[in-house]
């Protein structure tokens, strides 16, 4: 852009004209002087001296008239045409319903009228095209909506991701299941990394196994609950996977019947082995020792008969039972050792359990477990260590040993005697129906014992089955999920906002922010409500609202909306603006609690606000006490609007909304203003694009220029000008 753009050019023009006028006057005087005779010169000098005031006033008046004329001409013939051009561009891009204002001079008024006529026709034609496009794509939309409906009806939580693990699609069940942790808001969102929910290693592990044709689910800890995760690659036939589908299920509660069946099967197996042992012992004794006395021979024969009969009866029972699915090991799933230890650490009750130090997490080790029950069993034993054996701290370690993994809890002190440990294992565990630790261990073919060491320490050791060790249910190769069409449509079709197949196109995320394309960035658009306008003088945030914009789309259901207890009174003047009273804030979390959650919500996105430096000032003041710093780039819709429309003077939210054809509703709640700002951002992005501003770096540079320009101009105050210092920002000023 030229350095003489806009107001700079006007200043230069006025300066040049002034110089020319002064030069003209001086030249005129010099010419007269040179041509005059000596007496005339004297007379002239006298005249100039006596009429100096008149002459200088004349020159100044001349300068003023010329200057005013230039400013007026500039307004009419430079600024106004440019405004007309910008407005025409608006019609052609984001708001076909926009019209130029018809103002003098007559020639420009005529031009504006002509453009408006053209706009009418254009808008009508545009509507026709849009209708045809809509009709042409109706079946595609229908297909997608059918899929969306299907997904939303599914009880299972479904997340569809691209190869980088970005979420392209999710359903309501996924939100219900995963969005209930106040410490992890917004983990389910378009463009979010699925690895916020499911560990990256777990996905890799399950995908590996899927390719090998093995079972494709695993268990992972989620807060205090356990999730069963199933992963299937999305691959067009004969190509590399372009993404994967994650199915998540809460396995915190399961049916007891499976467990009873399991126990029955185990008893049967053992019984059969016992009978076989008795028969074999008797028969082999008979065969090996032909000199057996008759009465002993008789005894062995009876044993063989009785045991054979018992064996038959047991097999019959087994057959009867196999009507039910005896091989159901559905509760046994792959779980990484790291997850197991993390879950144990998370679940153990702080008040009853020992402190836990993790020695070795067994990274890369995978177990096959009913993860939920296993975690309950381990934590029950550890809690007993504290309450009944006075162990304050244990060191947990896990390492593979043969086909098993050794989970060892070590402490300084004496080992448990076997009887005590047996008693503990017969106690019922919480949250697993009627299971005892022993039941759970038996299901896992796991063992537990405690021993002392020479150095005076003792340990409790559990042997747990490694993945790929004990028998698993057979699973054929997973058929790849159907490839979902990834072309974007025109966005005007009704479709749930939690769809975004376009993210399939998104590539690696480590491109430096500056070079990221504006239309590929995920934005967190936010707004705050405050007790007043002076953060440095004790004003506080009382509400934070935010919404996400991903791939140029406003995701209305991915929001953040929290009230904050400011620990001070809300002045009546500001209450009139936002309607938030002291009563509403009592008992709400403090800013130190809300900011970490907001920070996680805004993770990996660009922050956007309107007149955002105001909100940032409040956030920055809380950095020390909340421990949260916002390091991501920030954009301001006010500055972006000024960059797009330098010749429009008003850049309040209402003014921009009016220009861009955005309906203004729900203002002056934090979330309402965030939504409006997000609407504005979505409309501003294509306009920026039209001006050759494609990357975040370019957008920030443009904002910087307008910022400096606006700082220089008192009539565009950077801060809202207010008459009432107690009030929040007045309506219309943001």
């Amino acid at each position: 852009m030229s350095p003489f753009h806009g107001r700079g050019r006007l200043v230069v023009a006025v300066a040049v004209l002034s110089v020319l006028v002064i030069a003209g006057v001086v030249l005129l005087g010099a010419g007269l002087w040179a041509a005059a005779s000596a007496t005339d010169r004297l007379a002239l000098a006298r005249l100039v001296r006596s009429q100096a005031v008149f002459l200088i006033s004349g020159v100044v008046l001349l300068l003023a008239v010329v200057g005013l004329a230039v400013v007026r001409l500039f307004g009419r013939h430079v600024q106004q045409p440019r405004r007309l051009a910008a407005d025409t561009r608006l019609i052609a891009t984001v708001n076909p319903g926009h019209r130029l204002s018809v103002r003098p001079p007559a020639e420009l008024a005529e031009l504006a009228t002509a453009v408006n006529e053209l706009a009418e026709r254009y808008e009508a034609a545009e509507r026709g095209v849009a209708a045809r496009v809509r009709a042409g794509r109706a079946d595609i939309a229908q297909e997608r909506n059918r899929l969306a409906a299907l997904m939303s009806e599914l009880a299972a939580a479904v997340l569809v991701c691209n190869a980088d693990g970005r979420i392209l699609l999710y359903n309501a069940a996924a939100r219900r299941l995963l969005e209930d942790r106040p410490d992890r808001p917004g983990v389910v969102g378009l463009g979010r990394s699925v690895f916020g929910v499911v560990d990256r290693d777990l996905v890799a592990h399950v995908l590996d196994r899927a390719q090998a044709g093995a079972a494709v689910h695993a268990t992972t800890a989620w807060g205090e609950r356990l999730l069963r995760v199933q992963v299937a690659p999305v691959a067009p036939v004969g190509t590399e996977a372009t993404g994967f589908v994650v199915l998540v299920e809460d396995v915190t509660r399961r049916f007891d019947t499976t467990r009873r069946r399991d126990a029955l099967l185990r008893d049967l197996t053992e019984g059969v082995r016992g009978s076989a042992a008795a028969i074999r012992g008797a028969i082999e004794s008979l065969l090996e020792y032909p000199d057996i006395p008759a009465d002993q021979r008789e005894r062995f024969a009876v044993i063989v008969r009785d045991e054979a009969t018992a064996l038959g009866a047991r097999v019959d029972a087994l057959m009867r039972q196999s009507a039910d699915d005896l091989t159901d090991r559905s509760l046994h799933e792959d779980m990484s050792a790291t997850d197991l230890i993390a879950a144990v650490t998370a679940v153990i009750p702080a008040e009853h359990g020992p402190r836990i130090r993790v020695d070795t997490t067994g990274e890369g080790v995978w177990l096959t477990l009913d993860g939920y029950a296993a975690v309950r069993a381990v934590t029950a034993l550890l809690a007993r260590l504290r309450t009944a054996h006075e162990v304050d701290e244990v060191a947990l370690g896990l390492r593979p040993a043969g086909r098993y993994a050794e989970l060892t809890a070590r402490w300084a002190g004496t080992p448990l005697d076997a009887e005590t440990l047996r008693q503990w294992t017969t106690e019922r565990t919480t949250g697993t129906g009627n299971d005892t630790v022993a039941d759970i261990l038996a299901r896992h073919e796991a063992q537990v014992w405690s021993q002392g060491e020479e150095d005076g320490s003792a340990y409790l050791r559990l042997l747990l089955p490694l993945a790929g060790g004990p028998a698993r249910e057979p699973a054929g190769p997973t058929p790849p999920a159907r490839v979902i069409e990834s072309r974007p449509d025109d966005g005007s079709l009704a479709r749930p906002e939690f769809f975004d197949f376009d993210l399939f196109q998104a590539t690696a995320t480590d491109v430096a922010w500056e070079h990221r394309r504006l239309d590929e960035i995920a934005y967190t658009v936010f707004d705050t409500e405050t007790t007043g306008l002076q953060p440095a003088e004790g004003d506080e945030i009382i509400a934070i609202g935010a919404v996400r914009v991903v791939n140029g789309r406003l995701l209305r259901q991915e929001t953040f909306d929290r009230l904050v207890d400011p620990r001070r009174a809300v002045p009546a003047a500001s209450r009139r603006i936002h309607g938030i009273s002291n009563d509403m804030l009592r008992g709400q979390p403090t800013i130190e609690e809300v900011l970490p959650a907001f920070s996680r919500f805004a993770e990996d996105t660009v922050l956007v606000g309107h007149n955002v430096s105001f909100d940032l000032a409040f956030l920055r003041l809380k950095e020390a006490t909340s421990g949260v710093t916002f390091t991501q780039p920030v954009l301001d819709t006010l500055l972006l609007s000024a960059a797009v429309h330098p010749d429009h003077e008003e850049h309040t939210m209402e003014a921009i909304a009016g220009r861009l054809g955005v309906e203004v509703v729900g203002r002056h709640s934090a979330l309402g203003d965030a939504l409006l700002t997000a609407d504005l951002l979505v409309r501003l992005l294509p306009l920026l694009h039209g001006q050759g501003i494609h990357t975040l770096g370019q957008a920030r540079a443009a904002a910087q220029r307008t910022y400096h320009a606006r700082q220089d101009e008192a009539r565009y105050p950077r801060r809202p000008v207010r008459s009432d210092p107690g009030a929040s920002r007045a309506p219309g000023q943001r």
Partner: protein
Amino acid sequence: MTRKVLIADDEPNIVASLEFLMGRQGYDTLVVGDGDEVFAAVERFRPDLILLDVMLPHRDGFEVCQQLRAGGHDTVKIMMLTAKGRESEVAKGLAIGADAYVTKPFSTRDLVARVAVLLADEP
């Protein structure tokens, strides 16, 4: 001196074979069918080897084994018998002080041979 073998198992049909086999090898035998009875029997009978079933009433074989070792019975050989035969059990049994671990059903000849080897080791 005649070697003494204590048989701790609660399944009489298996005990019949074990008792017979041990007797034929010339060992003195004593049978108990309960985990709690093992300790008294060890004190009284002073066996050189115990055939110890894992599944005993009142006190399982692991517990008996661990308590015997903890109670200073270091020299008596302990051969554990089980119908389960899982690796985790074998690992646990050996970790808590058993000398051998035999899975049911077993070959009588092997069992006899292994008992002989264990008893020959004894100082």
